[in-house]
C-alpha cells in the first residue's frame, strides 16, 4: 500500500509539472488566438485588446495558470476560444472517439502479435520466420502516413468502404444493428492503419523475448518430462518471457490517447488528433493544454499499470 501511495503522490507531482511545462511552452510560442484578427483591417486594435482582456489573455502567466487550475477543479478544464465552450465537453466527446479507435487497435494488435510472435519464435530459421521478419521490417519502414493514404486510395477507388469520418450522415436515423455496421465500416481504415503500424514492433519483441526464454534449461527440462509443444510455449515459455512484454503493454496503454493523431487527421476521425491540430494552429491555448494533460494522464496510468502487472505476474519481483 505504501508503494501505491508513493506512486500516486509521484503521479500528481508529475501532472502538476507537466501542466506547468505545457503552459510555459505554449506561452513562449509566438502569437495568440486573436492575432488573426489583427490582420483584418476592419477590426480595430482596441477591439482586439478588449477581447484579449475579456478572455484574460493580458494577465501574467502565473495568474493565468492559477485561473486555469481553478477552472480544472471546477470541472470545466479551461475555456476554448474557438468553440466558445468549456474544454471539458469538447474533450470528452473527442477523447471517447479516440479511445474507441485506439483501444480496439491495441486489442487487435496484441491479440495478433502474441500468438504470431510465439509461433515464429518456436520455429526459428524456417520459412515463416523469415517471411514474418521481412514483413515486419517492411511495415516498420513504411510510415503511417503512407499506409493511411495508400489504404484510403484503395478504399476510394473500390468504393468498398466509407473513406473517412466516423459515422454516416444518416447515423442518427439508423437502427441499432445498422448503427453498429456503419460504425464498423468507418472503423476499418483507421483501425487497419493503426494495427499495421504497431504490429511489427510487438511481434518482434514477442519473438525476441520468447527466443531468449526458449533457450533456458527449464524449457528443455519440461520437454524432457513430456510436456506437449503448445503447453510448453504458452504455459511455460510465455509467462517467463512476459516481463519485457508487460512493459511494452504499459507503453501501449500510455499511447492510447496520443498514438493516433496522424491517422485521425488523415482519415477524418473526429478524435483528439484533429482537435489538437486545430487548436495548436489557432492558438486555442486551453484546448491544447487540456489535450496534453489528457495524454499525460494516460501515460501515467500506462506505466503504473505495467508496474502493478509486473508485481502480479512475476513472483520474483514480488520477493524484492
Amino acid at each position: 500500500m505504501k508503494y501505491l501511495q508513493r506512486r500516486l503522490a509521484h503521479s500528481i507531482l508529475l501532472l502538476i509539472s507537466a501542466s506547468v511545462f505545457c503552459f510555459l511552452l505554449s506561452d513562449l510560442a509566438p502569437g495568440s488566438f486573436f492575432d488573426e484578427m489583427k490582420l483584418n483591417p476592419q477590426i480595430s486594435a482596441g477591439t482586439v485588446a478588449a477581447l484579449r482582456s475579456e478572455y484574460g489573455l493580458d494577465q501574467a502567466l502565473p495568474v493565468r495558470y492559477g485561473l486555469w487550475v481553478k477552472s480544472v477543479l471546477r470541472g470545466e478544464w479551461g475555456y476554448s476560444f474557438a468553440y466558445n465552450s468549456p474544454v471539458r465537453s469538447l474533450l470528452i466527446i473527442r477523447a471517447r472517439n479516440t479511445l474507441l479507435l485506439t483501444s480496439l487497435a491495441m486489442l487487435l494488435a496484441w491479440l495478433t502479435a502474441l500468438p504470431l510472435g510465439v509461433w515464429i519464435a518456436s520455429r526459428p530459421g524456417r520459412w515463416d520466420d523469415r517471411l514474418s521478419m521481412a514483413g515486419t521490417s517492411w511495415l516498420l519502414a513504411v510510415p503511417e502516413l503512407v499506409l493511411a493514404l495508400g489504404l484510403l486510395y484503395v478504399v476510394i477507388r473500390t468504393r468498398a468502404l466509407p473513406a473517412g469520418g466516423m459515422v454516416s450522415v444518416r447515423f442518427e436515423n439508423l437502427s441499432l444493428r445498422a448503427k453498429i455496421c456503419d460504425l464498423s465500416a468507418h472503423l476499418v481504415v483507421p483501425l487497419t492503419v493503426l494495427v499495421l503500424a504497431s504490429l511489427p514492433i510487438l511481434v518482434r519483441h514477442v519473438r525476441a523475448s520468447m527466443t531468449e526464454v526458449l533457450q533456458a534449461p527449464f524449457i528443455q527440462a519440461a520437454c524432457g518430462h513430456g510436456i506437449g509443444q503448445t503447453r510448453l510455449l504458452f504455459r511455460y515459455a510465455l509467462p517467463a518471457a512476459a516481463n519485457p512484454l508487460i512493459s511494452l503493454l504499459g507503453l501501449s496503454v500510455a499511447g492510447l490517447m496520443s498514438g493516433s493523431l496522424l491517422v485521425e487527421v488523415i482519415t477524418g476521425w473526429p478524435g483528439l488528433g484533429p482537435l489538437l491540430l486545430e487548436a495548436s494552429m489557432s492558438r486555442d491555448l486551453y484546448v491544447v493544454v487540456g489535450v496534453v494533460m489528457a495524454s499525460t494522464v494516460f501515460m501515467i496510468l500506462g506505466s503504473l499499470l505495467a508496474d502493478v502487472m509486473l508485481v502480479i505476474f512475476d513472483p520474483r519481483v514480488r520477493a524484492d
Partner: protein
Amino acid sequence: MGIETAVQPAIKPALVKTSGLSKKYSQGSPFSRKKFAVDALVDVNFEIASGCLTALVGESGSGKSTLAVCLAMLEKPDAGEVWFGGEEISRRSDRELASLRPKIQMVFQDSAEALNPRFSAAQIIAEPLAIQRCRSLKQLRTRACELMEEVGLCADWADRRPLQFSGGQRQRLAIARAIALKPSFLILDESLSGLDLSTQAQILNLLLDLQTAHGLTYLLISHDFSLVGQVADFVAVMHKGRIVEHGARWQVIGNPQHDQTRRLLDSVHVMGRSFQAAHGGRQR
C-alpha cells in the same frame, strides 16, 4: 550464544581482522507492510593470518558470502569494524578505499557469470590494470599473456571468449584477473564448487603455487570440508551468521568443539569412510 575465538598459535600476524561485524538484509514485498530482516552476520570477530590459507566452512545461508563481500569492501557492514594491514577500512569513503582495492581481490563461484562474455580473455585480465591506469595498451596485452601463462592457460587463447573455455579454464582466467594487480589478500568464494575432482585438484595446486610465489593470503570459502581439510592452515566454521569455531586445521578437524563442526565433518566422513573401506585405505 557466545562466539568461540580459539587461541591462535602466534606464528603469523593477522592481515585481516574483524570485530563485531554485523549485517542485516531485509526482505518483503513492496505491497505488504511486513518486512522481515535476515541476520546475515551477527557479531563476527575473526582474524586471518598473513601468508596462510584460512578456510571458511559452513552451510548455505550461514553468511559466508556476506562476510566475503564485507571483507572485500564491496558492501558496508551495519555495525563493527574491519581492519586490513592495521588500518580500519569499513568506515572509509570510496575514494579513500580506491588505493586499497588492488590489495584485496575476489574470485567468485560461477566463472561464467563473473566474467564479461563479450570480452576476450586478454581483455578480461587486463581490465583491472586498465582501470588502475597502470600501463599502455601494448603493455596491457603483454602482461595479460604473462598472467595467462602463469595460471596455466595457453597465451594463444588470449582472444577467445570466456564461454569458449571449460569451467576449470575459466576459473584459471578469473584467478589471473584477480592476481593482475598483485594483491596481498585473495578471497575465493566457493570458487571450486561445481568443478570436477581433477580440475579442483589442479586449481588448488595452482593456488598453492601462487601463494608460495607471491606470498598471498587466502580466504577459501567452501561448504566442502573434505576439500579444504587438505590444504588449509586454519579453519573457521560459520553457522547462522556467527563464527562458531576457529583454529588450526588439525585442531578443528581432529578435535571439533561445536555441534555444527561435528555435523559438517560427519557428513563428509561418512562418505569418506565408506569410500576408503571400499577403496582399501589410504593410498598416499
